[in-house]
């Protein structure tokens, strides 16, 4: 489902949020799908339930998830829209990073080799 990179400087709750959004954007999670309980998610990801709770809280605040019947969380209708929006934000962020790198003196070959390396890791 979601991969948590414990080595990343990105906070875990942030990674969870990004992961959920990513899955919605890719179409792996559709509006109306039930999200696993906080306990189950925490166990599955080996993370502190509080962290998961925070991620869920913020996603709910952002409108990506909504809680129905009090307990469970579901992917909201707006989620896709939000996801698309965040993917757009990611794309923009990536472009900025590229610009920075080019400005800093990184050649196109170097940039491509980085992409290849990351792709390889993804497999």
């Amino acid at each position, binding site marked *: 489902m979601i991969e948590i990179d414990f080595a990343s400087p990105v906070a875990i709750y942030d990674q969870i949020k990004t992961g959920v959004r990513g899955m919605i954007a890719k179409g792996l999670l559709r509006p109306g799908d039930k999200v696993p309980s906080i306990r189950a998610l925490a166990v599955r*990801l080996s993370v502190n339930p509080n962290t998961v709770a925070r991620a869920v809280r913020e996603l709910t605040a952002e409108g990506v998830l909504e809680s129905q019947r009090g307990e469970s969380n579901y992917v909201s209708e707006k989620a896709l829209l939000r996801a698309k929006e965040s993917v757009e934000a990611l794309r923009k962020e990536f472009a900025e990073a590229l610009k920075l790198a080019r400005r800093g003196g990184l050649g196109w070959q170097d940039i491509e080799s980085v992409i290849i390396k990351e792709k390889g890791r993804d497999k």
Partner: protein
Amino acid sequence: MNSNATVCFEGISRSFGGHKVLAGASGKIAAGRVVGLLGRNGEGKTTLLKILLDMLACDGGRAVINGLSPDGSGEIRQHVGYIPERPLFHGFMTAQGVLETRAGFFRNWDMTRAKALASKLELPLGTRVRGMSKGSLAKLTWICAAAHNPKVFFLDEPTSGLDALVRDDILKNLITELTGEGKTILVTNHRMEEMAGVLDAVWVLSGGAIAFASPMEELMRDARHIKLRLKDGAQLPEISGLTELNREGGFVELAALSGAAEDKLRATGAAETMETAGLSLNKVFSVLLKQFGGNRHV
């Protein structure tokens, strides 16, 4: 002593025959928090836990666990789930017998819960302790620690020596404990990286006291893995907060636990090229140990 904290200790000292193991150790854990205690072998992690659990007398200092102080009566242990470093049970008893015996000692023992945990962990209750494998013993130990619904857990190397599946079981159960009311947990683990996602904060016990304490989020955010190439003839500057990981001629690998250290290094201009990335978990904990952990080899 902060009354909001569930676990609070101040100035704990203990010597063994002239050898000072703990000297003024102080710490606070707020309710519902998980703290990982790092320390090299022999730095006194187990000693500290035993003192807090009223199993060992201290030379000085105070402690309050869930409103109780260690007073020699053992009352504290009614309210704490404890996994000892080397769990032992009476060899002649079966797992069922162990649970029944414990039920008699712990006021808040919940036998239904104990049995449910046993079946979840797939621990057959009829086996005799004498014949149990390490994994089964660990499961039994966990049940004994959790079945009386304590609000505080002290776990001393709960996953040491266990195979990956049992380890996972224990970890899962630990996380489950945290949901809902949220229990306060102090855990030691030589392989802290397996619990990194669960920790709220990490402490390093060294030189008899808590030499380093930091929330996990900050630590992960600020920790850096730096690879650099020194300029010809340049020396690596001495900057506190930097730990050397590897050196191969002019190529140096460093770890920094704060952004300030990295900036300082950059400012010295000793590096020709420098690359920074996030510091991986296993490296984080071993860097912490290297930097704060002390020289004792026991």
